[in-house]
C-alpha cells in the first residue's frame, strides 16, 4: 500500500492532538474523524487491516479532508499528513474503492481539451476556476497587457489529489504538449494549485512558471490609495510553496493598507483549496468553510477580502455573495484606478 511509505506520519499523528485547532474541516464538522489525529487513527487501522479501506465512512472521511497542510506548517517536526492522505486516496483508487462521486468527477477531469488563443511572450494559464470568473483574466490583461491564453482543463493536479496518479500524469503530459506548442518561455497562472503542480508535480522543462502575484510584483506597478484590505492566504502558496510574501508585497506596493484577517495567521482561510476541487465533492462542507470566513470578517459590509486563489474566490462568491471578495488581479487593477 502507498500509505506504508508514510508510517512515520501515521505513527506521529495517530495519538497527537497538537494541530487539531488548525483542522479546517474538523473545526466546522466537529467530527473527530475530520482531524489529523482521527484520520491517522483510521489509516493506522487500515495499515493493520487493509480490508478496512472499503469502509464507506473511512473513505468518506478521506475525501472530506481539505488538504490545507496547515497542520504540517504548524507541526514543529512538519509531519506531512497531506502526503499521507494522498497516498491513502491513491490506495483507494487502485483498489477500485473510490466512491462513485469521486470516480465521476475524475472522469470529468480527464476530458481536457487544451487550446491556446492569442499571442504574447507570456502564456497565461486559465485554470477551470478562473475560467468561471472572467473578472480575473480581464483584470490580469488590463494590468499585464496582451498574452497568449492556455485553457481547456486542469493540469492534472485535481486528479492527483483525488488519488488518480496515472491519469493525472496523462493529463499533465497533454498539458505539457500544449505549453510546448505555444513556444512560450514563461507561464503565469493565478491558480496556486496549478502553480504548485507545475513547479513540483509536473514541472515544465525550459519554461519559467510564475504565480500571478510574483509576475505582477515584478512588473513594478505604481501605487495608488485604494484603502485597506484583508488578504486571505492561499493554502498552496503558504503551506505548500512557502510563499507568504509575494501577494502581500504586491498589495502593499499597490498602496493597500493590509489588515490581518481573522484571529491568527495559522488557520486556513482558503475554503478547501488544498483539495483543488473540494467544492465539487463536498459542497456542504465547502459552504461551512465559507461560513467560517464570514464569522471572522470584521465588517461584512465594508471589508475588502483579497484572495490569490480563484478557487477560494469562487467558493466565497457562491456561498457568501454579500462579502466583498476580489482576486489579487482585481485588487491591483482597482488600485491602478
Amino acid at each position, binding site marked *: 500500500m502507498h500509505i506504508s511509505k508514510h508510517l512515520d506520519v501515521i505513527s506521529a499523528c495517530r495519538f497527537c492532538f497538537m494541530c487539531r485547532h488548525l483542522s479546517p474541516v474538523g473545526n466546522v464538522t466537529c467530527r473527530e474523524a475530520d482531524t489529523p489525529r482521527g484520520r491517522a487513527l483510521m489509516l493506522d487501522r487500515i495499515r493493520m487491516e487493509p480490508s478496512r479501506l472499503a469502509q464507506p465512512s473511512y473513505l468518506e*472521511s478521506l475525501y472530506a479532508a481539505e488538504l490545507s497542510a496547515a497542520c504540517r506548517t504548524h507541526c514543529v517536526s512538519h509531519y506531512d499528513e497531506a502526503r499521507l492522505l494522498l497516498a491513502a486516496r491513491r490506495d483507494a483508487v487502485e483498489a477500485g474503492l473510490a466512491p462513485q462521486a469521486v470516480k465521476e468527477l475524475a472522469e470529468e477531469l480527464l476530458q481536457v481539451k487544451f487550446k491556446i488563443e492569442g499571442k504574447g511572450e507570456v502564456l497565461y494559464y486559465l485554470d477551470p476556476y478562473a475560467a468561471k470568473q472572467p473578472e480575473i483574466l480581464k483584470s490580469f490583461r488590463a494590468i499585464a497587457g496582451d498574452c497568449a491564453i492556455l485553457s481547456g482543463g486542469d493540469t492534472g493536479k485535481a486528479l492527483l489529489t483525488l488519488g488518480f496518479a496515472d491519469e493525472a500524469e496523462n493529463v499533465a503530459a497533454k498539458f505539457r504538449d500544449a505549453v510546448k506548442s505555444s513556444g512560450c518561455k514563461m507561464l503565469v497562472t493565478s491558480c496556486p494549485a496549478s502553480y504548485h503542480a507545475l513547479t513540483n508535480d509536473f514541472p515544465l522543462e525550459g519554461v519559467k512558471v510564475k504565480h500571478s502575484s510574483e509576475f505582477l510584483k515584478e512588473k513594478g506597478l505604481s501605487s495608488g490609495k485604494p484603502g485597506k484590505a484583508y488578504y486571505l492566504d492561499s493554502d498552496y502558496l503558504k503551506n505548500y510553496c512557502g510563499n507568504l510574501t509575494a501577494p502581500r508585497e504586491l498589495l502593499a506596493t499597490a498602496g493597500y493598507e493590509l489588515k490581518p484577517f481573522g484571529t491568527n495567521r495559522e488557520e486556513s482561510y482558503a475554503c478547501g483549496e488544498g483539495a483543488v476541487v473540494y467544492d465539487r465533492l463536498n459542497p456542504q462542507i465547502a459552504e461551512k468553510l465559507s461560513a467560517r470566513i464570514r464569522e471572522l470578517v470584521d465588517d461584512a459590509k465594508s471589508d475588502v477580502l483579497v484572495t490569490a486563489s480563484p478557487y477560494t474566490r469562487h467558493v466565497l462568491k457562491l456561498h457568501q455573495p454579500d462579502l466583498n471578495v476580489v482576486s489579487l488581479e482585481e485588487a491591483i487593477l482597482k488600485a491602478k484606478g
Partner: protein
Amino acid sequence: MTATKESYLQSMLHGELTWVVGEQYVQTDDADKLGHSIDYYWVPEVWHDRGKELTPPDFVVHPGSAKEVAEVLRIANNYKIPVVPWGGGSGSQGGALPIHGGIILDMKRMNRVLSVDTVSLTATVEVGINTQHMEWELEKRGFSSMHLPASIACATLGGFIAHRGTGVLSTKYGKMEDMIMSLEVVTPTGEIINTLPVPRHASGPDLTQLFLGSEGTLGVVTKATIKIHPIPECRKFHAFLFPTMHAAMAAGAKIMTSRLRPCVIRLYDEPETAHLIKRVLGIDREGAYLVFGFDGQEEMVDLEMKQACALCREQNPEDLGTEMGQTWWDNRYKFFYPPYMFHMPQAFGTLDTVATFANIEKVYWAMKNVVTENFPQARFIGHFSHWYEWGCMLYARFIIDEPPTDPREAIALYNKIWDMAIRAAIREGGVINEHHGVGLKLGRMMKDLYGPAFKVLQDVKAALDPNNIMNPGKMGFPGGNR
C-alpha cells in the same frame, strides 16, 4: 440483521436524538466512533497499537445549545444509557472514554465567545470552544485568558473545567478553578442551572467549585464566565542551573514564600535536565535547570526579576541568563510534539501530584524510590511546574522503553507502577493528581485519598444522578447500568 431488542432500541434512540439536534449532528459511523474511542490515555493507545478493538460509543451527538443538552440527558435518563461529555478528547486519564458505550456528547459545536465585559474583565464563553481559538479571539480584542497550557490547541475550555486544568502561567494567573467566575450546567436530570455570578461570596457552599473537576460525572457544563486580563506590557525570563534539585527547590520556594509574583517557575530534576532540556533546548549540562518569568509593567517586572535572581544566587547556581530563559519559553510546547514526546512502543505515564513545600521533596523521593526500586526497567524523571504560595506541583514521569509486548502484561505493569507511586505520594502528603484529573485511570484510588470523605462525593453523585447516566465508571464512581 436480527430484530433484537437492541436494534429496536438503537433505532428508537437514533430517532429521538436526531429529533433534538438534527440528523447531521448524530453520528454512528465507524470513522467517527474510532476517534471517540481513544483519547490521550496510554492504555487505549496501546490497545489500538496492538490491533485491538476499543469500546466505541453507540452515538456521537453534537448539541448546539444547553437546551439540546438537557433534552439529550432526559432521553438518556429515560433509557438509562450512559452519557459521556467529550471536548477535545486529549485527556490523559481516560476520563472521556465511553467505556460502557452509550452517547458521547461531543461539545465542540458549542464554540462561541458570547460576550466580553471590558469593565469587569470577564468573558462568557460556550465551553466547547477550542482554547487556542478562544485565546486568539480574546487577543484580537486586546485581552488574554492567560490560560496557556501545552494542550491549548488540543483541548476545549470544557475539558479544562472538567478536570481542573492548568496552564503554564498558573503561578500568577491560577488554575482553572481560579479562572472561572461562574458556570452554566445541565444537571444529569436535565435542568439548566447557573452558579452564582461571582466566585467570592458568603452565600453558602460554592456550587461552581462543586462542578469544577467533576469530569462530567455530575452534569454537563455548557457555558462559563472566565476572568480575562490585559496583555502585559512585557514578559521576561531568567534561567539558572543549580548543582542539585534540592538547591533549586530551595530557591524556587524562597521566591514564592517571599511573595514575589512570578507568572511561571519551572524546575527540572537532574535526569530531566539531562534528557529533555538537552534534547529540546540544546542545553547539555549537568544539574537542575530552573527557569522563571515575570510579566506586567516593565518597571515592576524588572524589580521583581532582580529580587528573584538575588534569591537564586544565594544557592550559588550557574547563571544561564535571560536568553536561556527565553529559549525555554519559546520552545515550551515543543516538548509535546512528536518525536519529542514519549511514544509507542514506550510505556509512559505522568504521575502528577502536588504538596506543600515541607512535603514536596519527600513526595518526589517517595515516588522516585518506589519506581526505581521496584521497576528497574523504568526511568523516572520529573519537573515542578505550577507553584503556589505554599507548595508546588510535581510533574513526574516514568518511562519504560521496552515494555512487555503482550498488551495485557504491559498494562498490568503500567497499572502497578501507578498504584505504587501514587499511594507513595499520598502517604507523604501528596494527592492523586494536580491538573490532569482522575478519570478512569485513577478512580480506584479515590477512596484511599479521601478516606471516609469519599462517601460525601458518592452521596452527591447519587443525589444528582439517580440513574447513574453521567460518565459512569469514572472518578471512582460506579460503572454503568447496562
